[in-house]
């Protein structure tokens, strides 16, 4: 059987947002919209495949390499498939002072995976990140736009349970 790859395209709602983003910058400076548009792309596809990056390059009328070099520089972009919930936990000093290392060990044990891995059911991925600018409310991790702060083992348990429903 022939499998026809689905053409890469933003949903109409997202395409509208992308067009607005491009219009935010002066004429001829549409490349400025690259980071915002990559965020929208990641929101739609979950990660940035080379096909998606090529599509973004076309939309912004720039070379694909200009997208690759940016996507690989900034740590928020996933260049491989990830789970439904990517838990990005802060490993930097102030969070560690608040006992983050113990909380993250618990988190890893609970999910049975290490940083950079995804649970077999595809629900969770773990990603180690640097300071999330929430040091007074640490330990902290974020899942998509949401910050989870003042984490304890018990809090981690209930967050994981809630997101496993």
């Amino acid at each position, binding site marked *: 059987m022939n499998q026809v790859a689905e053409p890469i395209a933003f949903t109409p709602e997202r395409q509208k947002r992308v067009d607005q983003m491009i219009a*935010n*910058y*002066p004429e001829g*400076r549409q*490349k*400025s*919209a*690259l*980071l*915002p548009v*990559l*965020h929208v792309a990641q929101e739609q596809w979950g990660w940035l495949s080379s096909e998606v990056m090529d599509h973004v390059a076309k939309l*912004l009328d*720039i070379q694909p390499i*200009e997208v690759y*070099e*940016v996507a690989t*520089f*900034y*740590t*928020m*972009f996933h260049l491989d498939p990830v789970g439904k919930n990517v838990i*990005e936990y802060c*490993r*930097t*000093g*102030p969070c*560690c*002072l*608040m006992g983050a290392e113990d909380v993250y060990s618990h988190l890893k044990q609970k999910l049975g995976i290490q940083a950079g891995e995804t649970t077999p059911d595809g629900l969770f991925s773990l990603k180690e*990140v*640097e*300071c*999330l*600018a*929430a*040091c*007074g*409310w*640490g330990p902290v991790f*974020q899942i*998509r*736009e*949401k*910050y989870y702060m003042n984490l304890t083992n018990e809090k981690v348990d209930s967050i994981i349970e809630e997101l496993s429903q």
Partner: protein
Amino acid sequence: MSKKILLEHAHIEGIETFDTYRKNGGYEALEKAIKTMSPEAVVEEAKKSGVRGRGGAGFPMGMKWGFLAKPEGVPRYLVCNADESEPGTFKDHYLMKTIPHLLIEGMIISSFALGANKSFIYVRGELMYVINILQQAIAEAKANGFLGKNILGSGYDLELVVHPGGGAYICGEETALLESLEGKRGNPRNKPPFPAVKGLYQCPTVVNNVESIANMVWIINNGGDAYAAVGVGRSTGTKLISASGHIKNPGVYEIELGLSVEEFMNSDEYCGGIRDGHHLKALVAGGSSVPIIPANLVYKTANGEDRLMSYESLSDGGFATGTMLGSGGFIVFDETACIVRNTWNFSRFYHHESCGQCSPCREGTGWMEKVLHRIEHGHGNMRDIDLLVDVAKKIEGNTICPLGDAAAWPVASAIRHFRDEFEWHVKYPKEATRPGAVYMGEAELV
């Protein structure tokens, strides 16, 4: 209660909405500036206020504005640096999510002063929820005629764009931020030319921190002289301090510059003291980049004077016995903190965040991380400690941007003040790597 310039209304419920902000005097400064002042007069007030860059560098904002080139027919830009990523710092995060209109109003006033018709707020991408709050505030300001075409009938047009970053500490450096805003990797540019001459899209540009810009609202309402009367000496006004670590009340506090460190640390109005049953070991006063100082240099300078929360007093004694106000990231360590582990942690941060452009930083941060890792994990030797000092020295001052210095200072200062703790890790690797083990001084080794 000390003077509040930024957070006076932060506790009011609904202050994030336009209506509540407006009812509490919001946008009155903007009306005053646009209806009764010339752009030059606004710049003059900024200069008089003496307000210094709140992102960490502490350069006088009015002076920075004065450098902006104004060639005919070339657009000028104002870019707000909201890429807050310095470990220990979360004040801009707090300000933007709590009272977003203060930043928006400050941006409009500052853009008017600089003659910018399009201005950007570059927010670190992780704070997408804060970006949404700012977008909402911008939409409200626009709907009420404070933003967009012909603001308040003055003929002045301004468009504000919120731009998300992608996760890169280096983009807090202003020229890296501009590269990033142009859709490129965040590699800092060589200076000169400075952004004031060739910045965004090679046009004259001013880059200012969130807190600096937010101060303009009070400055216009009350005058630059009134602002300069707050604070101490050349440290005028108030400062937002992000307090974290082993204290009773972590959080964001607005203090009048010149408050004593002792009061800030121990007063219930602020940090509330070290957590119960513990005592102070060390302080990083202004974000992870600044030198760490031991407890005996926290409340008093080496000369025995009271240490104050000000640019001058915190750096009193230079690198030998001082630290810096920096971004106001106040990280407190009690006796349970391992200085070696923390220094390794910070080194890993700088290695991870180095853009890789300059060899001393790209290679040096990696070496420091590796050497610190092996000392912390019980595989170090005595020569490693001097090796670290040597590597730090070779990075410092030898890179395009200050990330190299920022990586070197925490290592050099930790060894300067806590050398015995590093040596203990080398001499007693078994004890030092036992989970939870902490160096308590030479006496407890025997």
